[in-house]
């Protein structure tokens, strides 16, 4: 029983962490090598990992998706430790619109222009910090969505994830607040109600005992004959 509980709790924690890892903004230090627009025919699997059409357009089953090709610095530990190694990364560049995740991004065309404005070439390396959310998966053809591009002087920049710090502090405060609310609700509403029910139940129980006594006496008149 305890093992089952632990497994379920572990799964729930894993799903929540994965969701945070997918949705919260992360920063990559990269240089942009080009941009591209390809037509995407979504499958049922990868449709979930794309946003929707540009916010003024109409949704069709097939559409063009803007991509940004980059070479980025590889990292360890969710981007906390930077490595010397580099690797290619391709970002999609889509409006998130008013829905999920709540980045309220409507400027994907401008972002594409920004990417081209900071284009890097082998003899003139231009480094940028790309803010993005999402995952790259080759087998399902999933790309992280670039949200912002900021030019930086060189590849050795430290990016402090202010939003994520604020978010987790806020989350902790919210959890404590909900816990306090729940405790107050239990103390002031549930417990007194339970006491009332207990009293009522004892009355019912006593009444039932009395009735049962009568009933069994009545049954007793049947038995033993």
């Amino acid at each position: 029983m305890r093992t089952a509980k632990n497994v379920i709790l572990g799964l729930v924690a894993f799903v929540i962490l994965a969701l945070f890892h997918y949705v919260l903004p992360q920063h990559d230090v990269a240089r942009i090598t080009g941009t591209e627009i390809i037509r995407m025919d979504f499958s049922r699997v990868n449709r979930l990992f794309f946003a929707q059409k540009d916010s003024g357009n109409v949704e069709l089953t097939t559409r063009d998706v803007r991509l940004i090709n980059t070479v980025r610095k590889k990292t360890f530990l969710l981007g906390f430790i930077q490595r010397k190694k580099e690797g290619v990364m391709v970002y999609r560049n889509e409006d998130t619109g008013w829905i999920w995740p709540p980045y309220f991004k409507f400027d994907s065309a401008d972002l594409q222009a920004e990417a081209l404005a900071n284009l890097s070439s082998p003899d003139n390396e231009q480094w940028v910090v790309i803010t993005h959310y999402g995952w790259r998966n080759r087998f399902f053809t999933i790309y992280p969505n670039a949200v912002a591009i900021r030019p930086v002087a060189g590849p050795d920049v430290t990016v402090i994830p202010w939003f994520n710090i604020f978010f987790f502090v806020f989350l902790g405060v919210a959890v404590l607040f909900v816990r306090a609310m729940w405790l107050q609700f239990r103390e002031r509403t549930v417990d007194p109600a339970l006491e009332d029910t207990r009293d009522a139940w004892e009355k019912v129980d006593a009444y039932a005992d009395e009735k049962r006594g009568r009933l069994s006496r009545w049954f007793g008149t049947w038995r033993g004959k």
Partner: protein
Amino acid sequence: MGFIRLIIFGFLLLSVIYVAISIYSRSIRREKLEDRWAEEHPGDMESPERDAYIETGMTEYQNSIRPKLVLLVYIIPTIAVGLILYLTNAN
């Protein structure tokens, strides 16, 4: 369409939070008044004076600025959305 959906569902969600926080805040207030009465009048758990004291305290609370502060539940997320909207799209 997405904007309308955001407004409707956002309003519903924030209303749930608003009601919950209002109830919580009132409950805390009432408990404090009860505790204060118990401190000043030990042994008196049920009397018309106690009820009157608590009701007066609650009316005072209802007329103070505190319950109105709960309305920030609607205002702060709206400001946050506006801020994110600006920071994401301005360049």
